[in-house]
């Protein structure tokens, strides 16, 4: 018998014919008709008109026919709720059938019909089925509770089904247990607070027993549920791990991955010194490798997960490089993932093999894959220093192939290699220059231009090369334009005599003929710099660049930890938390790894400085983002947005000798032609002026090197308590030294002399570094201001609160005592910037229970502003990331006693559309101001130097988004510090 014929009927009047057939007396004909109906339904035809006729066929002892009718019902009941009621009787009757298969079928189907009236009738049969003698019925009923909960959660709770379901966890049949676990887990997801699953050592034990006996799918449900359990200590974690490890040999990859998830999560609680920890690590590698011999789709899922595991625990797979070698016939998605993992595993030990492979891949067919392979070679060069030379020569070989996209990709990575190893491989520049003409991708062109600009002094015809790019300036992408502008300015600063014309040309192209605000802004800045102070310009433009870091596109640690909890699931495939792709509240409970148990951590005392603190002078390391060309002024902060039309910007201004005297010194008297004046603001109107001065206020606050926020003086010792001596004061930190600024007022009637001061022992060993010197006697009503330098070498005693300082002041009258609280940020030292790698390692190393979370309310700052504000108080931004539209700043600071505090600051940028921004690019202004601000603004002679503003007023309130709350998480080995660090943050950010 062939059923395919049912798919072919498409003639008109079909419904009518079907109706007749459905009502036929002959059983066979009826069945045929129902099959036709189902076939039409599958194809997407609307056969709901036949509802009553189909339902009439339900009363039958033919199971096949019954199932077909049920299938129809599940599809159409929702659109015909009134008629669906007709089916209820049959369902209820079927639930009493002696055949367990029929009972189960009825309860299974009823749960799929989302019609309220049917749902009401479902409760009684469901209750019976949950206690049915047959396990097949019970396992079906267990899932049905989840179905019912999806339709009407309240009903399930009212009817007490949840308790019955919980009882099923202790059922004698493993499959019933598994389905009950699955149902409960799903219901619990929509009630994150309720303790539905109520996992405790006893119930865990039951689950682990069922795990050995149930089907492969049941094992997955149970393992996924176990992964949500939090063992009470490391011993329990270990015993669960021991019972889960046998699952690693299961033939079903999903069972293996779910077991890996449980192990990876519970491993977090085990001490690394434990023998078992090492055993477990060894046991994890083989099953992960075996996953790679599964079908390609599963390989892909496995590889995405391995990518996470390699980042979390690189030691597991460090010797398994070979299995990630790409096979010629692998599907492209498998190839790309393997390549990614290869780069992560690359080390000095295996680099030769890896490079040979990568070179092989670079000749393959798929363009994406080839590009990634070329990029990988560059990443190896940056990651494994010893291999850099070979990588460069491999890249040169590839450039010789003249395959266009290979050449372009190679140039992009060579630029990064130059950044990492300056003055080492410049000999290859000549080869690169040969390929100038073939570059047609913006990224490659920008990279090449950067190289030419950076090494202009060694390339004889640098000016010609750059000039050739200049011809089509306006057709280039923003990235290239910005780079070209910078490169030509660099060239000019290096070879001023020959390139004057060129630089003028590019400046005028950038400032007058461009609609792009970023480009114009940068053009003006350069112009101003060049015209005002060429020496400063040199310092800014040719400044030493920070090194780029070796590890790129690592997943941010908190996200990584969360994703580890989702091993095997879609989240681990997408590398995104579920909230990013799941609608509504379902399944978006934030998961985190369990903290290390206290027993293993007790050795660490808060006073000991963390091991391996970075040595004093470390070069700054910033993450090498794809487009971050590392130029100090290359601040391409967002997509190009066309700024306000130029017309509005031409505030009428008189001509001013912009490029006056300053330049003469540089170009030796040649007369520099001033640019057309229209676009150059010189005579700023009052509102602009005030706006600007606000801007300068903003910058000067952060720009001064001494930086730290200073609170206004507060009265510490009122006159009443001290026989007329009033002391008010505050603490400051300036260029590495702490001082106590005191104001002594004599409110008594007699002269005060012989002042002296002494501190009680305190938490950070603060002590006066010099005696209190009041030079002249203090006569009545006289006030004197003294700055008392402090040191941190005094004796230490923990105070409560931590920042309490007890002070004794003596004068010729008496001794007075008072106590004050000092803000913690005066203790933040200047070398508190942690190396990025070290940061990552330390962050992972500090147990999670030491993490403290705070909210800083109503803080109107964006990431840049916050970062620079904090930096001036010696809180250093180690890295910045943007996760789901939020800026995350990773910061470090060090206290005078060597304690490090690591911070993660989460900033949700306000909605730009609701603020009155002149252009979305204003933040780059702020940053520019900050960057150039510190030393240089003042060098320009204050008011003499004005920022070009296009007729729009920028007051500070417009410069920053309307903000919300910042979230701060702090990690420190001495957790008691956190609260005070938080207060310091709040003080700094809000002032």
């Amino acid at each position, binding site marked *: 018998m062939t059923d395919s014929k049912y798919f072919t009927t498409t003639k008109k009047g079909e419904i009518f014919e079907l109706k007749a057939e459905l009502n036929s007396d002959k059983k066979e004909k009826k069945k045929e008709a129902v099959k036709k109906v189902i076939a039409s339904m599958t194809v997407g035809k609307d056969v709901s008109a036949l509802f009553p006729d189909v339902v009439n066929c339900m009363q039958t002892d033919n199971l096949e026919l019954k199932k077909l009718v049920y299938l129809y019902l599940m599809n159409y009941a929702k659109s015909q709720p009134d008629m669906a009621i007709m089916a209820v009787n049959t369902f209820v009757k079927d639930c009493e059938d002696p055949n367990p298969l029929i009972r189960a079928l009825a309860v299974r189907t009823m749960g799929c019909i989302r019609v309220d009236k049917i749902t009401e009738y479902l409760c009684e049969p469901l209750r019976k089925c949950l206690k049915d003698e047959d396990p097949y019925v019970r396992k079906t009923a267990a899932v049905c509770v989840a179905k019912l909960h999806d339709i009407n959660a309240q009903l399930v709770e009212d009817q007490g089904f949840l308790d019955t379901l919980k009882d099923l966890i202790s059922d004698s049949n493993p499959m019933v247990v598994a*389905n009950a676990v699955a149902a409960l887990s799903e219901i619990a997801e929509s009630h994150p607070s309720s303790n539905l699953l109520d996992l405790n050592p006893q119930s865990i034990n039951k689950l682990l027993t069922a795990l050995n006996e149930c089907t492969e799918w049941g094992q997955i449900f149970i393992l996924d549920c176990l992964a949500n359990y939090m063992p009470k200590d490391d011993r329990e974690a270990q015993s669960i791990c021991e019972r889960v490890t046998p699952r690693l040999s299961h033939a079903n990859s999903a069972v293996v991955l779910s077991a890996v998830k449980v192990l990876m999560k519970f491993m977090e609680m085990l001490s690394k010194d434990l023998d078992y920890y090492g055993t477990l690590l060894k046991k994890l590698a083989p099953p992960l490798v075996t996953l790679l011999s599964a079908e390609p789709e599963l390989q892909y899922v496995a590889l995405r997960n391995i990518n996470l595991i390699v980042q979390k625990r690189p030691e597991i797979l460090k010797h398994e490089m070979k299995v990630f070698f790409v096979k010629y016939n692998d599907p492209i998605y498998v190839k790309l993932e393997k390549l990614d993992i290869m780069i992560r595993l690359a080390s000095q030990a295996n680099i030769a093999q890896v490079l040979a492979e990568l070179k092989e891949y670079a000749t393959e067919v798929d363009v994406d894959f080839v590009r990634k392979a070329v990029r990988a070679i560059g990443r190896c060069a940056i990651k494994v220093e010893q291999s850099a030379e070979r990588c460069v020569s491999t890249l040169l070989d590839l450039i010789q192939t003249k395959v266009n996209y290979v050449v372009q990709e190679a140039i992009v990575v060579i630029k990064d290699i130059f950044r990492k190893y300056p003055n080492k491989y410049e000999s290859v520049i000549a080869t690169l220059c040969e390929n100038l003409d073939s570059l047609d991708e913006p990224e490659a062109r920008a990279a090449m231009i950067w190289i030419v600009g950076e090494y202009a002094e060694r390339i004889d015809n640098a000016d010609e090369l750059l000039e050739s790019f200049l011809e089509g300036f306006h057709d280039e992408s923003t990235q290239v334009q910005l780079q070209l502008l910078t490169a030509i300015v660099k060239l000019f600063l290096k070879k001023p005599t020959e390139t004057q014309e060129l630089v003028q040309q590019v400046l005028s192209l950038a400032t007058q003929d461009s609609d792009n605000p970023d480009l114009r802004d940068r053009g003006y800045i350069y112009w101003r710099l060049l015209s005002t102070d060429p020496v400063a310009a040199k310092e800014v433009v040719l400044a030493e660049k920070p090194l780029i870091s070796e590890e790129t596109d690592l997943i941010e640690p908190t996200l990584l930890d969360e994703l580890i909890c989702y091993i095997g699931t879609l989240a681990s495939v997408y590398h995104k938390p579920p909230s990013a792709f799941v609608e509504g509240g379902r399944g978006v409970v934030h998961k985190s790894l369990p903290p290390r148990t206290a027993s293993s951590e007790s050795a660490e005392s808060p006073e000991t400085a963390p091991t391996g603190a970075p040595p004093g002078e470390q070069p700054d390391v910033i993450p090498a983002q794809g487009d971050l060309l590392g130029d100090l002024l290359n601040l391409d902060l967002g997509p190009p947005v066309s700024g306000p039309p130029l017309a509005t910007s031409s505030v009428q201004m008189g001509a001013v000798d912009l490029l006056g005297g300053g330049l003469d010194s540089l170009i030796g008297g040649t007369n520099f032609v001033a640019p057309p004046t229209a676009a150059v603001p010189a005579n700023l109107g009052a509102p602009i002026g005030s706006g600007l001065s606000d801007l300068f206020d903003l910058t000067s606050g952060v720009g001064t090197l001494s930086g730290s926020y200073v609170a206004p003086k507060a009265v510490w010792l009122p006159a009443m308590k001290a026989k007329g001596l009033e002391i008010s004061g505050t603490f400051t930190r300036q260029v590495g030294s702490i001082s106590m600024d005191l104001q002594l007022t004599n409110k008594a009637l007699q002269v005060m002399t012989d002042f002296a001061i002494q501190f009680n022992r305190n938490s950070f060993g603060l002590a006066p570094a010099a005696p209190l010197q009041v030079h002249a006697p203090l006569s009545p009503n006289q006030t004197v201001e003294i700055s008392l330098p402090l040191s941190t070498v005094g004796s230490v005693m923990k105070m409560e609160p931590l920042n309490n300082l007890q002070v004794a002041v003596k004068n010729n009258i008496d001794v007075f005592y008072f106590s004050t609280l000092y803000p913690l940020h005066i203790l933040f030292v200047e070398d508190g910037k942690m190396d990025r790698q070290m940061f990552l390692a330390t962050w992972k190393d500090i147990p999670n229970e030491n993490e403290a979370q705070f909210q800083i309310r109503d803080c109107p700052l964006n990431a840049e502003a916050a970062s620079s504000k904090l930096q001036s108080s010696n809180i250093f931004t180690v890295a910045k990331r943007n996760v789901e539209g939020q800026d995350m700043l990773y910061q470090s600071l060090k206290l005078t006693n060597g304690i490090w505090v690591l911070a993660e600051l989460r900033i949700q940028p306000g909605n730009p559309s609701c603020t009155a921004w002149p252009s979305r690019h204003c933040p780059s202004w702020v940053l520019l101001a900050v960057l150039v601000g510190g030393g240089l603004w003042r060098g320009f002679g204050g008011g003499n130097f004005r920022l070009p503003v296009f007729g729009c007023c920028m007051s500070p309130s417009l410069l920053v988004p309307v903000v919300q709350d910042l979230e701060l998480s702090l990690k420190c080995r001495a957790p008691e510090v956190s609260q005070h660090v938080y207060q310091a943050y709040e003080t700094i950010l809000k002032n």
Partner: protein
Amino acid sequence: MIGGLFIYNHKGEVLISRVYRDDIGRNAVDAFRVNVIHARQQVRSPVTNIARTSFFHVKRSNIWLAAVTKQNVNAAMVFEFLYKMCDVMAAYFGKISEENIKNNFVLIYELLDEILDFGYPQNSETGALKTFITQQGIKSQTKEEQSQITSQVTGQIGWRREGIKYRRNELFLDVLESVNLLMSPQGQVLSAHVSGRVVMKSYLSGMPECKFGMNDKIVIEKQGKGTADETSKRCLSGKQSIAIDDCTFHQCVRLSKFDSERSISFIPPDGEFELMRYRTTKDIILPFRVIPLVREVGRTKLEVKVVIKSNFKPSLLAQKIEVRIPTPLNTSGVQVICMKGKAKYKASENAIVWKIKRMAGMKESQISAEIELLPTNDKKKWARPPISMNFEVPFAPSGLKVRYLKVFEPKLNYSDHDVIKWVRYIGRSGIYETRC
């Protein structure tokens, strides 16, 4: 969990559509067709997210199976389920083709109803399913039969029913290995591994308890320590033991027992099943060595010479040997000379295919070819894909040997000696490539 399951033909027409969850609508069916099946470029990922709906797909010949969900499901489970679904369908009606699916759509719906409930996979062992999804109705079942079915479907031993009887108790063991190699042109092994399977076909009465033993290094070393008597030592010294990197087992194997004692014990399903899979990387016998020599003579000519050497006992015969030598896309003509077998240039496959029916061990054979090229102005160099090889040899390249398979059935009166046992070893080429 899985929200819906669709099966499409190559044109993107729906053959089967079953929706399990309310959040999946009919538009999901079309979304997949438009975005994946009808997409212009090659599939870039087996998981596609379209408008917050995730689609998992696998392809069997030109049939697409897609599972759809809006939740954060266990992705590995979804793919495992799709494969299982294919296995179950194949067990019921053979090859998965458009015709077979249309012919059996009622059966498929019935299966989908049974093996996936609210998106949760249920028992999907064909052995169990075939007892009650028969397309025959249920008239003949007695009460005992019914409860037997349900206890089997849900029970601990869901893969085997009770009361099986055979006049002759017999079992077949196939050790099937595929040997994978990637070799550099200079003959350096870049990577090599064997992935093997032990497939068992059992025709045994009752509920037999089986124990399987092989020359696993860990087991042999353990035993060597325990019982150091002369005979067993002599026995074992002849057979070499092998180091197994990792193995996985059919769900009938007691994993906890393997974990603690490394013994493989199980009650087998009736009929054919895959007992275990394993992987080895050490001391692999590479049955063939390929030595390529490619010379570019000017811009329009290539000379290729390939030597293959067989590397196993001269008494054994390899079969179905095929060497595939890729040729550039701009090949205009090929002349081939080979010592043995037949060689042909297949323009549609861009390769010279050299076939040899049989070849004994420790022999060598050679092919040489001259390839004429059309002059092109294509700048990109020819990627030189590796030379690949197919073959079949009557031994296990990993060196695995079956030591025993003991059968105990305490309730019925047949003993281990009464069972007739057959063992066969087949080594096949997996991805066996030599770069040139």
